[in-house]
């Protein structure tokens, strides 16, 4: 049995479904990327699993952690899971830290809650965590406030805070999106290193395929509230099967491709209030048939490994052709 298993998870806001049945398994120690455009439900999946969505959200389905059901679980159960089993870091580190509380205290809260550390003991551990995430001169800076740190350092503090509860799974929700490129790379390195060090599993939510490939073993591509393709990173990059995934790769600029134009995916993400009857990607898809317009394909395991939700997955010959388009 996998460590976390999500089955048919759906979420609706004010009657508008935004998540249409997610199935996902995460093994211990595994790093999986969740890729997709903003609003496709990547973050909502995990906020729903941890019960962090606002009250108006309607969540159905099942999220099991070591067999324990989280959806509809009492608040105390969820509070015991959050931070201790599953920790989460967010997109905008500066506003994700409480501006009127010293960072040391914010990191220490998790130690008190989940490991019963207090006073000098807690302080020593906070210093160790700050060291571990690469905050220089932690001794002097433990009593500073978040606004006295840069964005990248705030994200490091968020990571230290997440590590405080020694979680088995870290959800990193677009942790590098708000940071500039060099800092992004540093944070990715840090996350990859910490995972090796601690052996925790990680879900890396991002719209940046490159970032995902840097930290993950496996990735799931989401579109309009569904997982449309899942595979291990190498296969996914070598042979994207869903036309949407395929399109995402074609839209990445290639350093060696000369002045060739990027090939964007035409059209826009559908409004969740007015989804097409069939496959949500059909209106933007070159391969769409009448079947696609009336039925939504299920996510099916492929013989070649991986899973795709498409009636007309990109053929390997075609894939081959696209690879040739771009001179190596």
């Amino acid at each position, binding site marked *: 049995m996998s460590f976390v298993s999500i089955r048919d998870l759906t979420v609706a806001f004010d009657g508008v479904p935004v998540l249409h049945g997610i199935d996902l398994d995460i093994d211990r120690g595994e790093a999986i990327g969740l890729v997709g455009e903003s609003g496709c439900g990547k973050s909502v999946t995990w906020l729903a699993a941890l019960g962090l969505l606002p009250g108006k959200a309607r969540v159905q389905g099942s999220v099991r952690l070591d067999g324990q059901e989280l959806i509809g679980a009492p608040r105390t159960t969820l*509070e015991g899971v959050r*931070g201790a089993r599953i920790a989460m870091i*967010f997109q905008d580190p500066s*506003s*994700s830290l409480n*501006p*009127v*509380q010293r960072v040391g205290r914010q990191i220490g*809260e998790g130690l008190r809650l989940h490991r019963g550390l207090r006073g000098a003991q807690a302080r020593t551990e906070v210093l160790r965590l700050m060291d571990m995430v690469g905050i220089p001169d932690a001794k002097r800076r433990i009593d500073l406030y978040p606004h006295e740190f840069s964005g990248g350092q705030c994200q490091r503090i*968020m990571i230290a805070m997440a590590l405080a509860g020694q979680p088995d799974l870290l959800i990193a929700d677009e942790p590098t999106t708000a940071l500039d490129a060099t800092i992004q790379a540093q944070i990715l390195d840090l996350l990859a290193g910490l995972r090796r060090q601690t052996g925790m599993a990680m879900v890396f939510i991002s719209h940046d395929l490159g970032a995902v490939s840097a930290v993950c073993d496996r990735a799931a591509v989401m579109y309009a509230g569904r997982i449309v393709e899942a595979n291990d990173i190498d296969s996914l990059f070598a042979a994207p099967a869903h036309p949407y995934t395929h399109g995402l790769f074609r839209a990445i600029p290639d350093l060696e491709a000369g002045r060739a134009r990027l090939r964007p995916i035409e059209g826009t993400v559908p409004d969740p209030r007015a989804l097409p009857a069939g496959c949500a990607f059909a209106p933007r898809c070159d391969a769409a048939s009448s079947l696609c317009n009336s039925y939504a394909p299920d996510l099916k395991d492929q013989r070649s490994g991986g899973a795709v939700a498409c009636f007309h997955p990109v053929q390997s010959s075609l894939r081959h052709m696209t690879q040739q388009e771009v001179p190596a």
Partner: protein
Amino acid sequence: MIRFILAKLARAFLTILLVVTFAFVVLRLSGDPAQVLLGPDAPQDAVDAFRARWGLDDPLWQQYLAYLRQILSFDFGVSMRDQSPAIDLVLQRIPATLALTVPALILKLAIGIPAGVYAALHRQSVADRGVIMMSIFGFTIPSFVLGLVLVLVFAVRLDWLPSGGQSSWRHAILPIATLSIGGIGILARFSRSAMIEVLGQPYIRTAMAKGLPWREVVWRHALPNAAVPIVTLIGFMLGALIAGAVVVESIFSWPGIGRLIVVSVANRDLAVVQCLLLVIAASMVVANLLVDFSYGLLDPRLRAKPAH
């Protein structure tokens, strides 16, 4: 930090100077104390003598300079009516006013803030709607209407409480109620929106994601952040401790600062009015200073950077 304090103090002093100047000019331009005190039928030589006695014949700027020199030496003049020092008249009224405004302020804080926070934490519930309705009711009814309605119900109809005067603690109940109801409404409304704003912030989600129990999320993360806007409002209320009861004191014939203002202005008792305005301005300025300094305590981002 020292520079920050000095700058604040300088600005406070300037504010008081402006208030004093404005009061001085407006009072001189808006009516003749001789006419009011001596009556319209007073003989001309009596009026002239009165003006000479109080220096009202001098050019305005001379009077102004003389006045400034006076107050800088803490001489606030004497009442034109009974020659007693203006500052004594003012000071001896302050306790009566504070006897109304301090309990009213305590009620505002003790009821308004918890009600607003509770409403924010139970948004869209019956309690929330109740709080919103009551607070709109509280701050939209003008105090002179509210005071009269309370008198009508509790003094005239039910005969439970006296309608005016100051002879026992029971006399204070209706004026305190009148004074506090509006403030409770405003504070409830304000605390509610401040809390709702804070509860929507990413750091609240972080605190929850950490596994903190909801109580601790509210107490340690939400309330301290909601405190800044609420304290601003409390500052206004503190500033109104001395001058905030003019209408209510008049309705309930409560012999405090408010009554003194009304009577002295009507009589053009220049020294007393000026002294009153000075004391009121000073109390507002002090309240604002307290708020400014408390911001730094509440929010480290607003703290003045220490000089390195």
